């Protein structure tokens, strides 16, 4: 197991290194940065949904929370290091509380979906209504529907005047994604990850084995939120403004579509799905012939009908049939059977 993870990590580092180096030759680093951010956001849902069986309709809530936490903290502190950490910690704690309420209350999957959806709506409405001058946190005005512009963006730790932006931000975001991906891989190979998959498969059995299912789901949910929070902070740095639309339902739905299209129960599926669909949306945004939500809807329908397991599992099983060899990840193969069914019934 240890060795397997070592080889896995090495392959991951090499692939990531090559991709990060080549990609800017094709697409501008400015666009790439946001694709990476979306990839990380999709990974956060892919972790809790694909491996923990928790369908969160409100992953955007943690994304927005991370972005707002960063913006507010950066205005107050004037340096980016602590705000970056806070953008991870605040969504983590918020998700701990929300998750504990849902999972210790033994809510079914559907209600978890509904509650996370409603929490997103509440945050969206709340942030939207904070335009008045009385909504101030320290030096930062929440700004309502105008959002918060003009905060300190990412800088070299301890040196607020040397900013990390443009290409620098791209490399930083890529490195962050690789680190998160390595941590997620390690987590999934560890007993915690294997137990999480067990819980996804059969909660009752896992609790009859003596595992505290509620505690483990809460922790996994919070870890997903922490990753989404980091993605939010990176987004804030990229956009240099945070607005309530980060919390919007459209955003939440998009994350789910990325996961379905890329392939649930795989680590790379959601990232690839997010990057591909976000880039497609970017290209479609440059023309006026067809509305891009129509195309997005069409893509989702086509995927659910013809490629219900998503891109990555389809490629892996195609590779296996062609070359008769079990494909890349053990986890990928493991989830192949169930991913499709889950995606269809939830989609």
């Amino acid at each position: 197991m240890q060795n397997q993870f070592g080889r896995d990590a090495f392959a991951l580092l090499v692939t990531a290194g090559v991709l990060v180096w080549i990609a800017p030759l094709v697409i501008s680093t400015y666009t790439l940065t946001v694709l990476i951010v979306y990839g990380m956001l999709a990974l956060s849902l892919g972790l809790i949904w694909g491996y923990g069986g928790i369908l969160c309709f409100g992953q955007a809530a943690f994304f927005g929370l991370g972005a707002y936490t960063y913006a507010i903290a950066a205005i107050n502190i004037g340096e980016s290091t602590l705000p970056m950490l806070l953008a991870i910690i605040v969504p983590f704690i918020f998700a701990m509380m929300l998750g504990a309420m849902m999972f210790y209350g033994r809510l079914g999957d559907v209600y978890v979906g509904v509650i996370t959806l409603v929490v997103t709506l509440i945050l969206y409405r709340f942030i939207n209504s904070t335009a008045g001058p009385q909504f101030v946190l320290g030096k930062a005005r929440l700004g309502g529907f105008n959002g918060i512009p003009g905060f300190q963006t990412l800088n070299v730790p301890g040196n607020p005047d040397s900013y990390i932006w443009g290409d620098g931000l791209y490399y930083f975001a890529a490195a962050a994604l690789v680190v998160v991906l390595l941590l997620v891989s390690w987590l999934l190979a560890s007993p915690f990850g294997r137990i999480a998959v067990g819980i996804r498969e059969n909660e009752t059995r896992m609790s009859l084995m003596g595992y505290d299912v509620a505690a483990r789901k809460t922790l996994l949910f919070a870890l997903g939120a922490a990753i989404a929070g980091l993605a939010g902070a990176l987004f804030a740095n990229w956009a240099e403004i945070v607005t309530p639309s980060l919390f919007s339902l459209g955003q939440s739905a998009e994350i789910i579509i990325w996961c379905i299209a890329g392939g649930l129960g795989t680590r790379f599926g959601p990232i690839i799905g997010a990057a591909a669909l976000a880039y497609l949306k970017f290209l479609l945004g440059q023309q006026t012939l067809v509305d891009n939500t129509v195309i997005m809807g069409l893509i989702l329908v086509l995927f659910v009908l013809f490629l219900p397991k998503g891109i990555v599992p389809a490629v892996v099983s195609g590779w296996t049939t062609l070359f008769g060899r079990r494909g890349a990840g053990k986890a990928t193969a493991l989830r192949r059977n169930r991913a499709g069914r889950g995606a269809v019934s939830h989609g």
Partner: protein
Amino acid sequence: MVETVLETHGLTMRFGGVVAANNVDFRLGRRELRCLIGPNGAGKSTFFKCVTGLQTPTSGTVYMRGQETTDWRPHQVASLGVGIKTQVPNVMDGLSVHENIWLAARRFLPSREASQRTRDIIERLGLGDLSRRDLGQLAHGERQRVELGIVAVTDPWLVLLDEPAAGMSAEDVERMTGIIYELNRTAAIIIVEHDMQFIRSIASTVTVFHQGSILMEDHVDRVMADPTVRNVYLGKNA
């Protein structure tokens, strides 16, 4: 007197106006093998669920090895070293046989030892060839055997089995009887069962439930010969 591993006092479970279990006083000694029988709706399964923490009784108390466990959740009961198999097969169909049993072993052992014990149990259950197969692809009897493996791998001192023989072939039942005897060398066992033939083949003390209460408790042969029990089973005085 033998040490008591499980005891209930006045255990009662109501669902609205229905009293599913009524004032049940029960005790089980160390390494005892006990079958719970009774017609449908007699309260066996309710009793089973109250003991395992799947349901919390309306009133009454449950003690395991002298510790009160009345309001405990299933994972707390299981953590004491109690192996539980529910009526419907509860396994991870999307995972391999090895992973299913490993997850059970990992609860009480470090990863490496858990793998070792998992391999041992798989051999003992005669599942060696299927070790890497997904559980969902196996036959019903094999899946039941894996679930027994999940229970056995943790070395429980109390084993609770709800209808383990349901839907199994004669050969599978025989094999399972062997596993149950083996478990019984170190653990007290409660079996909730319908199948009288299976209970006879195990030949142990039987507790008969009827309308939520314990009707009688005796050796299987005497229980079978008892006219009241026969009536209850045939539904004459119900």
